[in-house]
């Protein structure tokens, strides 16, 4: 089944591994992600921090392309892109705002935009927990994982429509369906410091350290992320965080798609695991071949949606 897809800029740069694993896992699930043509940057935080209309213009161009293609639902892996696109769709309902944004665009934006949702929700809508379980080739039963959504994915609740804004559970559902032990990770929606790693490094280091510290204390084998920026802060910047916290961290930070890929028996290479700064080799050692392909329904067994 084809899905219109907006990868976001980091997919083509710092989070190539997220992109790679997303594509691989979706392929296993029978989801064919088709990039909308000629998409541009959503503007990320800088655009809306500078001007809401500028941000909306950048997003509207993408939504407009999707609308021209007749797309009904657009998937994106990046929560920041998702947030910007969804905020824009909401703000464009205001005619005055829309008129101001249209002034910035080559052509006035389409009157109706397609819905935008996360790849994670897209997967859950595509197949239920049993469906996911049927693809499992490796036993993740030895892995204890700390799911981490970051602050953007679930809020504001009315815009993001991602379950309880304090306590989203979709990733838990997917990871559990993959057979892993999932922690009730209290800081799952705490902020990692976002893009302030560059202009205000201490802040990002302190915030990331807090998350890494808790995951370490809760004896997680890995933090599982859903956001390129969060992953970068927690993984690439882990030494900065460790220095700030005066601690030693050795916490692998994987994308949820990488974990799912491992469960599906995909090779580390296919999942881009070599891009991780903190090696996931300890995780790989804990994987065992699934004794037999589980046909018994997963507990709950119902849809993750």
């Amino acid at each position: 089944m084809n899905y219109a897809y907006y990868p976001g800029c980091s997919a083509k740069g710092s989070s190539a591994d997220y992109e790679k694993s997303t594509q691989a896992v979706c392929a296993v699930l029978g989801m064919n992600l088709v990039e909308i043509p000629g998409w541009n940057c959503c503007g990320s935080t800088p655009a809306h921090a500078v001007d809401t209309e500028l941000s909306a213009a950048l997003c509207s161009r993408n939504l407009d392309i999707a609308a021209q293609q007749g797309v009904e639902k657009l998937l994106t892996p990046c929560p920041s892109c998702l947030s910007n696109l969804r905020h824009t769709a909401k703000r464009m309902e205001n005619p005055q705002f829309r008129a101001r944004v249209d002034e910035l665009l080559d052509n006035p934006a389409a009157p109706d935009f397609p819905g935008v949702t996360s790849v994670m929700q897209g997967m859950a809508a595509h197949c239920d927990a049993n469906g996911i379980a049927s693809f499992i080739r490796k036993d993740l039963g030895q892995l204890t994982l700390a799911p981490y959504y970051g602050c953007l994915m679930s809020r504001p609740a009315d815009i993001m429509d991602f379950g309880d804004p304090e306590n989203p559970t979709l990733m838990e559902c997917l990871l559990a369906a993959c057979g892993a032990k999932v922690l009730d990770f209290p800081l799952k929606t705490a902020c990692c410091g976002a893009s302030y790693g560059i202009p205000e490094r201490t802040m990002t280091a302190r915030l990331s350290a807090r998350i890494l510290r808790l995951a370490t204390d809760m004896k997680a084998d890995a933090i599982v992320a859903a956001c390129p920026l969060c992953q970068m802060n927690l993984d690439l910047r882990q030494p900065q965080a460790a220095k700030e916290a005066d601690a030693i961290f050795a916490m692998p930070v994987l994308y949820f798609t990488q974990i799912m890929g491992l469960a599906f028996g995909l090779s580390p290479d296919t999942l881009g695991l070599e891009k991780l700064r903190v090696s996931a080799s300890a995780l790989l050692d804990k994987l065992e071949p699934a004794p037999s392909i589980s046909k018994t329904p997963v507990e709950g067994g119902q849809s993750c949606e």
Partner: protein
Amino acid sequence: MRIGVFVCHCGSNIAGTVDCAKVAEIAKNFPDVVYADDPMYTCAEPGQAAIEAAIHEHKLDGVVVASCSPRMHEATFRRTVERAGLNRYMFEMANIREHVSWIGKEQQANTNKSAELVEIAVAKLRNNRPLAAKTFDVTKKTLIVGGGVAGIQAALDCAEGGIPVILVERESTIGGKMAKLDKTFPTVDCSACILGPKMVDVAQHPGITLYACAEIEEVSGYVGNFSVKIRKRATYIDWEKCTGCGACSEKCPSKKTPDVFNEFTGTTTAINIPFPQAIPKKAVINAQYCRQFTKGKCGVCAKVCPAGAIDYAMQDSFVTEEVGCIIAATGYELMDWTIYQEYGGGRYPDVITSLQYERLLSASGPTGGHIVRPSDGREPQTIVFIQCVGSRDNSIGRPYCSGFCCMYTAKQAILTKDHLPQSRSYVFYMDIRTPGKMYDEFSRRAVEEYGVEYIRGRVSAVYPDGLGRYVVMGADTLLGEPVEIRADMVVLAVGIEAAKNAPALAEKLRISYDKYGFFMESHVKLKPVETNTAGVFLAGVCQGAKDIPASVAQGSAAAAKALALFARDKLENDPQTAQVDARRCVGCGKCIRCCPFGAITETEIRNEKKAQVIETVCQGCGLCTSTCPQGAVQLSHATDNQILAEVNALCR
């Protein structure tokens, strides 16, 4: 008709901006007006005497006073004209103070407006008829719904006053929330020790009939003559036989039954008596957990019961009581705080409610009065109290203050120090609200003598730190900084809400309730115990947040209302009720459908269906009058013709 008009100066209150003499002069030209005057203070004794004198002298059969609001002095002047021999309803008022002199400064406009208001009053009065109250018998018996401390107090006061009481309690024991408390503020008295004797008095008083495990099914009738159908839920134990020995509970194999009385801090047996001082001290089976019901076999309790009281086949039964008044004292419940996901939403075992903490403090509680963490049974060293959880929070639709949390939090912090001298307590608060006798002194003691740290700010989140403790993320707004505390235990001062089925009961009682389910008093300030339904009174938190002394006081107040009501052998109704002109009535029943009080019934006159007003139930709203197309129902003293006369006086 001979009408007298009195245009009051009210000192300068009216005369300052209204030419009262001129108004009186104009009034003399209105139809049927034979006398007009402008006294200085009409309501004062000489003013009233002048009215009486004028009635006699000019043979008046109707009086209009133009002065302040009828809401102020209508009753006063009605008594005045009555003293002079007129029917009290042959009197009208024109409000030329609140509605004229106080809201405009132009004398000419005000004078003109005042004269018109007098004209309206005269027009209405010309259509007035003398009305007389009807008398009826009363059943001198009180029904009290809810056996918490407010209901208990009301029951004892009524019974002491010689009025028989029916006390209906939903749970298997009376005592309510107070029975669950360890100590009470500000004296740190043992709650059970002061409530227990009152509960025993209820059990032993010959004038009180107690139905526990019972609820109100149906209410009909009116003040003085209510008929209340009560559902007695099946307890599966014949209480006539049960001696409360507790043998059944000792032997019951279902030991994992959630302990409602202990706020789920522990477990109990499927057959049990909630606590040692329970009244009535009778066992009840929780059918959801009893093996006899869930598995179809067990029967242990039936075997061990020395009295042979167990009856697994018991069904709900009904009893109907005739009473003269009803006191609602249904109390409150804690709101469902688990919507606060930022405090763990109920997932963290050591984040508990204040009422659960109360059970941990209590010697009769699941831990025997030792403060230990539910998660691992260890004594906590650092305890954080968070106030206003579910109070003053608009984001969850609870803007109101729950009133007593500040005080019990201070009490709990003090008791914590008593139990665990090495412990440290922190209280996050927004404001400390302690407006009671010795209350603020008490909360200051918590700080000054017990070293409780009060931190001014709300808590944003609580989460486990992975090492067995909890991180409490708060703010100290006085410091202007975020603060963090590693706590072993977190106690939430959870806000209150009305009992779950309070709205359903209100519908049965035909009393109003606010959007939070609290019952509405008749007047916020002046009738805090009465409701809009005559003969239904309120006591305790069901009317709004209040602490134990206030609940007890209101319980006594409600009892006083009941005793006052029953001080007379006959009751009089307010004659401003609807009347049906049976000739005009076509029996369509539209009035019956709309009447908010069920005050209109169907009757048969010469084989034709007709509407009939029960005058004692009718509250005089007049909805029926504006509903009846034939004008067959007319509200006395606000008839179509009376209002039309007013409209016609204005619009011609």
